[in-house]
């Protein structure tokens, strides 16, 4: 009997030797005359276990990990295809607590299917949402998204329904849907996992968005640092066109939607939506002043829906299960689930999709198992490079946009980066300024010059020059950036800097932080 064995094709698995593991399994099986079928699946998101090899049995799928190429021989020696004893054995995949305790709606298929198999996708609930949406008129589709309470997952948490309604109500012969797949925040990888691991879901979500606003053309703007995600999406788009899920006369409905891809070119600021539009138009990624809103004058000056990958990838489940089903998860104004990314110095790093409202501490301690180094946790950066550095006493905050704002933080794209007690927070603050200096689009002075001055001031503080006076200068500089920047690049860089200063003054050669006079 043929035994099916799964080896993930996600970039994290590849970066840890998954191709070599897959190759070794095949060779070993041939040499031992064992009949196997090797499937390259997506990742379950338990990244500390990658490369996670799964064996399918009548009792379900069983896990071995992390498997290195040199472990393969011993797996066969242990007769792992019949679930033989092995130190890397983790039992039934579905019973692993890390997975079992999650509420996977957007990541429902993660690790289960072959990303490029549209048959798998449909078999596991794919394209039900689109079928449903095709029976609705545009207003009803927009109402459904509004009902679901979905807010953008790209950082600004803007209600998706309001955005779609604005585009629907804008009269124009040509409208666009643009998917923001620039995922530049350190500590985030959920967009990448969707593009590599479940590309048809994203394509389906974008198609529903197009139906909602009567757009006939769409673009996915993928960062150049994600070559595997780009290739995966490209292949999936071709398949979707072949099978009439994209292009002219979608599933016989008479509707047309063409989806194009664009590759970014290494500028973080092009994740800002208007800079992204400039970039797609073939220009430098300079942020546009608003108004006009992109929903009214966006790509090529036409009304444009712009949404993050996770926002759009969540649309299909809302249309297959219903708006109320989705809205019943979550807390306060943050409805539904959040794909949290546990990153940095954490023992069990990976993807945790769970309803809004879980505390940061539960995520880091219960799911993450604390630091990987085993040392004490010192700082946690939430929400990417523009997010605050929180300290241990702040970890009881709930994952919810408003709750995080109250402690001076921001949710961003849901990335959580853990640092142990070897971190130097003055160096981290300096890095935030350096990053802003490198990535500023240059349009406004507070950001462009402020960041350069910020690096100098941090250098002075680190070398112990005039620390009190330089700290006041740093605060002053930060308030100019906060107030005078056109976008969040300059406007939020002060968050990590000031939070590092406030929560960790001892790293700035200070006993206490001086008050501005």
């Amino acid at each position, binding site marked *: 009997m043929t035994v099916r064995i799964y080896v993930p094709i996600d970039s994290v698995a590849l*970066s*840890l030797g998954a191709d070599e593991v897959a190759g070794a399994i095949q060779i070993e099986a041939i040499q031992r005359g064992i009949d196997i079928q090797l499937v390259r699946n997506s990742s379950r998101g338990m990244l500390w276990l990658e490369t996670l090899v799964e064996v399918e049995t009548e009792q379900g799928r069983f896990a071995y990990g992390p498997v290195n190429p040199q472990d393969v021989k011993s797996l066969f020696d242990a007769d792992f295809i019949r679930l033989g004893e092995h130190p890397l054995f983790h039992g039934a995949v579905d019973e692993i607590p890390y997975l079992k305790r999650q509420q996977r709606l957007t990541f429902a298929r993660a690790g289960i299917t072959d990303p490029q198999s549209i048959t798998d996708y449909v078999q596991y609930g794919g394209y039900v949402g689109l079928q449903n949406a095709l029976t609705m008129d545009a207003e009803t589709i927009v109402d459904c998204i509004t009902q679901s309470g979905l807010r953008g997952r790209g950082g600004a948490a803007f209600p998706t329904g309001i955005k779609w309604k604005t585009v629907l109500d804008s009269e124009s012969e040509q409208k666009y849907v643009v998917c923001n797949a620039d995922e530049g925040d350190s500590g985030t990888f959920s967009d990448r996992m969707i593009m590599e691991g479940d590309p048809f879901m994203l394509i389906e979500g974008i198609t529903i968005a197009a139906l909602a606003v009567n757009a006939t053309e769409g673009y996915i703007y993928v960062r150049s640092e994600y070559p595997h995600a780009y290739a995966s999406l490209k292949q999936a788009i071709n398949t979707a066109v072949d099978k009439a899920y994209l292009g002219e006369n979608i599933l016989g409905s008479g509707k047309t939607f063409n989806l194009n891809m664009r590759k970014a070119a290494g500028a973080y600021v092009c994740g800002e939506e208007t800079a992204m539009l400039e970039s797609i138009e073939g220009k430098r990624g300079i942020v546009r002043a608003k108004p006009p809103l992109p929903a009214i004058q966006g790509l090529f000056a036409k009304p444009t829906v712009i949404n993050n990958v996770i926002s759009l990838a969540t649309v299909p489940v809302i249309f297959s299960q219903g708006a109320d089903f989705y809205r019943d998860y979550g807390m306060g104004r943050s409805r539904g689930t959040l794909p949290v990314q546990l990153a940095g110095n954490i023992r069990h*790093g990976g993807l945790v999709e769970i309803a809004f409202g879980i505390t940061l501490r539960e995520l880091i301690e219960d799911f993450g198992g604390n630091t990987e180094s085993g040392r004490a946790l010192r700082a946690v950066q939430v929400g990417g490079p523009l997010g605050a550095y929180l300290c241990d006493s702040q970890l009881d905050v709930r994952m919810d946009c408003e709750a995080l704002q109250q402690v001076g933080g921001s949710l961003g794209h849901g990335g959580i980066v853990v640092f142990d007690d070897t*971190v130097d927070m003055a160096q981290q603050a300096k890095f935030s300024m350096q*990053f802003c200096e490198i990535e500023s689009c240059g349009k406004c002075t507070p950001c462009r010059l402020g960041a350069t001055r910020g690096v100098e001031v941090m250098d002075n503080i680190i070398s112990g020059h005039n620390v009190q006076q330089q700290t006041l200068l740093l605060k002053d500089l930060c308030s100019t950036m906060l107030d005078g920047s056109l976008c969040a690049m300059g406007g939020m860089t002060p968050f990590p800097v000031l939070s590092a200063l406030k929560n960790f003054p001892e790293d700035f050669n200070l006993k206490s932080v001086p008050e501005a006079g």
Partner: protein
Amino acid sequence: MLKKDFDNAAILPLITEFEGVPGALLPILHRIQETLGYIPQQAVGCVAEFLNLSRAEVHGVISFYQHFRQHACGKHILEVCKAEACQSRGGRELDAHVREQLKCDFNETTTDGKITLEAVYCLGLCATGPSIAIDGKPYSRVNEQRFKQLLEQMS
């Protein structure tokens, strides 16, 4: 390092395949760089003419984006992640180690022309860093020993 010259005959076919594509400048520049390894000076004029832009505009776009190279690069591109999540897992130490081993800094090429070193701000491998990419292929959990092995495998 190799000093290559390209004539328009090598560049033009890379450009003309984008006839009619809206906002074609970035796709064209990617195509040129994927084929030639960088965007040679001669290409700027060809691209400008094809898209009805000034040379200054094309040049402005190339220089805005960190991904685009204006000079020939080494045989391999080594990207090292310098972003926060990798920093928390030893990325700063790896960064220093790599520069010391290669005896070159970021945006430079080793004297034997083998490796061009570039900084990257996140490869999306943030739970298993420090992360690098060699010619676009990702590697994570890169410590000094793993880096040594990878270096030896590069021909």
